[in-house]
């Protein structure tokens, strides 16, 4: 009898839904059906059964073709390449678990690498704003139960986070929001009429690239001053109406996305949004949250902040301390300036997401991809190492967009012989220690796990 597994986490977007139900075949190897997942999440669960999935590392040969090699050879090549490079760049981690991120940190430290995650090309500017101005945020549970005015600034959850609106932000009925959508005022700030904007009570169709000006107008009005007749393509009356709605709200929630942190000004747009949140709090309650993209992209920020003190763009090449300064130590800048001599792409697709010029620079040196699937980055790599899919074949801790940790489950067995990210990085670390004739340093918890069990003793 096929078995339904409940309360499964979905390894797709930053909403990190944990209410998925998955029907697994008798032998526990194949996923037959899913419930509750959005179309994209559903696709990810079915994708693991794809017959085209690579199950062995593939190494680029002098003739340009790939040749399958063993995991030992792949681990050896990676360890040697990382040790030989003066400044390798290890980038990615949008789609893996915190255990893998923790394991790669040991490798990066040993290699004197720059360790960066997808936030670098995503919500990195939001991090800069948070460093400068704080982060008055809350959890998605609070949004569901309390928020009655919700702003979507430069984000389109109807497409990017398909179940966000139904689970947290627009439709659900919560403790103080018993009437659901009827009780919520939705304000959307977007230059396009997106599907989220169509759901909004007020849609401010802002002139692209003028977010900062509009935030400044909101703040100026909130402090009782006059503003010009038109700001960022929005009429004064519309701004006053939106501010009035915000002031009347009992709990105002601002969600912001790439439209806010990747137009001109970047971190400053988010910075002033945080200042606006602070201002609104002198009238009513307000909170702000970044619409993080991947299901565990908040994870590296948590794990590496704990390990090194910084969430991303970590330059560990100094040996004595971690240095962080996005603009210098951020992946795309490093690539464009030819500042690194080895690139490792883990659990993301730099080939698809980086500017083509950045990839051209990176391609001059060794290029390694660690990813369960074939993607653009894997196809231009010198070495592609497949791993198990987290959330489907590998359990682990993930951090949702509101920085709430969730334990994801394993629902089916991974392909035989294919390691998890954590296992792979531990093997690379051990090999690096062997090559440098040093003792590996494991965390106490890790030593504990490696210690013989009571039965073995």
């Amino acid at each position, binding site marked *: 009898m096929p078995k339904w597994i409940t309360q499964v986490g979905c390894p797709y977007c930053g909403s990190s839904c944990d209410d998925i139900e998955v029907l697994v075949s008798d032998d526990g190897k194949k996923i037959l059906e899913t419930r509750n997942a959005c179309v994209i999440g559903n696709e990810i669960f079915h994708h693991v059964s794809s017959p085209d999935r690579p199950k062995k590392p593939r190494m680029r040969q002098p003739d340009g073709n790939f040749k399958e090699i063993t995991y030992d050879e792949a681990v050896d090549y990676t360890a040697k390449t990382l040790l030989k490079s003066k400044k390798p760049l290890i980038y990615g981690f949008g789609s893996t678990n915190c255990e893998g991120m923790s394991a790669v940190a040991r490798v990066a430290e040993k290699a*004197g690498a720059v360790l960066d995650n997808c936030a670098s090309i995503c919500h990195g500017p939001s991090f800069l704003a948070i460093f400068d101005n704080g982060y008055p945020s809350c959890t998605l549970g609070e949004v569901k139960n309390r928020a009655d005015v919700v702003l979507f600034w430069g984000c389109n959850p109807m497409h990017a986070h398909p179940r966000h609106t139904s689970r947290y932000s627009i439709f659900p009925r919560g403790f103080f929001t018993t009437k659901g959508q009827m009780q919520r005022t939705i304000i959307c700030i977007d230059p396009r009429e997106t599907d989220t904007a169509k759901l909004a009570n007020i849609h401010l169709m802002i002139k692209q690239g003028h977010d900062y000006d509009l935030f*400044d*107008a909101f703040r100026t009005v909130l402090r009782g001053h006059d503003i010009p007749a038109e700001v960022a393509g929005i009429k004064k009356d519309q701004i006053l109406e939106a501010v009035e709605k915000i002031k009347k709200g009992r709990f105002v929630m601002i969600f912001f996305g790439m439209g806010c942190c990747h137009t001109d000004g970047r971190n400053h747009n988010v*910075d002033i949004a945080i200042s606006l949140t602070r201002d609104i709090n002198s009238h009513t309650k307000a909170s702000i949250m970044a619409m993080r993209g991947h299901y565990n992209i908040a994870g590296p920020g948590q794990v590496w902040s704990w390990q090194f003190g910084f969430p991303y763009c970590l330059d560990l090449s*100094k040996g004595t301390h971690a240095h962080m300064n996005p*603009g210098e130590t951020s992946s795309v800048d490093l690539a464009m300036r030819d500042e690194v001599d080895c690139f490792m792409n883990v659990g993301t697709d730099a080939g698809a997401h980086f500017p083509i010029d950045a990839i051209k620079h990176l391609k001059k040196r060794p290029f390694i991809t660690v990813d369960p699937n074939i993607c653009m980055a894997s196809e231009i790599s010198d070495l592609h190492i497949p791993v198990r899919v987290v959330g489907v074949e590998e359990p682990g801790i993930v951090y949702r967009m509101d920085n709430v940790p969730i334990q994801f489950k394993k629902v089916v067995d991974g392909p035989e012989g294919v390691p998890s990210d954590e296992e792979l990085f531990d093997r690379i670390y051990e090999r690096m220690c062997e090559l440098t004739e040093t003792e590996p340093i494991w965390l106490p918890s890790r030593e504990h796990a490696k210690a013989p069990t009571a039965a073995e003793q």
Partner: protein
Amino acid sequence: MALVTLKPYKTPELYLECYNISPDVFAGKTSAEIAELDVREGKTTVKLGDFFEVKGNAGKTPEETEIRVSGDCSRIKYIGNKMTAGSITVDGNADMYLGGWMKGGKIHVLGNVHSFCGIAMEGGEILVDGNAENYVGCAYRGDWRGMRGGTIRIRGNAGNDIGTFMLGGTIIVEKNAFIHVSTHAEGGTVIIKGDVQGRVGGQMVKGDIYVLGAVQHMLPGFKKVGMTEREVDGMTAKFTHYIGDLGERHLKVKGKEVYANLYVMAA
């Protein structure tokens, strides 16, 4: 003044981090000792002499030491890092962090500089004959105490984030600037002699900005209060006076709020 000349003869494969190119480190050293100083390329430590031909001994103190880098430093970071006295001249371009955390002395770059020029500067003088990239005289990430003193003069154009979190000192950009001038500033003076695209004085608490060209997009938080005649960098002109950022918090002195000033030259 004792002159030390550094002549680059080899281009690094990546970038060199030369925290040691500073009169404070060179002082009291012979040319042979200077050539033995450490520089870093990625995770490797190499010698200054591996990349530069060093001539001349340094003076006894930083004040008596003059450094001349006669060649291009496009791949050299941290020139004049934390220097307190003496002078450095670069006969070409310089990379990131030129004069970072500088407390005194003089730096003159004949070419262009990359980003973070004069980051968290406290005193001294930086003169750049060419253009500067972004973050001229800015604060380090997360620090609310930016540039506190000294003068930065860029003879060409500058990018975005000029004088972010500035508390004191002067920045002069003789041509155009992109966006974000004196964001979050609580003091200091920025003078832009050309045009600025926008976001001048956003979230600004205190301080002065002079724009001698045009501001393409004025922030809604700035209010025109009148006309005034001011002396700027040796010339006197008529300016339109704005105060702001009205959306930001401001200190009260004798019950009256003190705003930041923006002066835009009257056409």
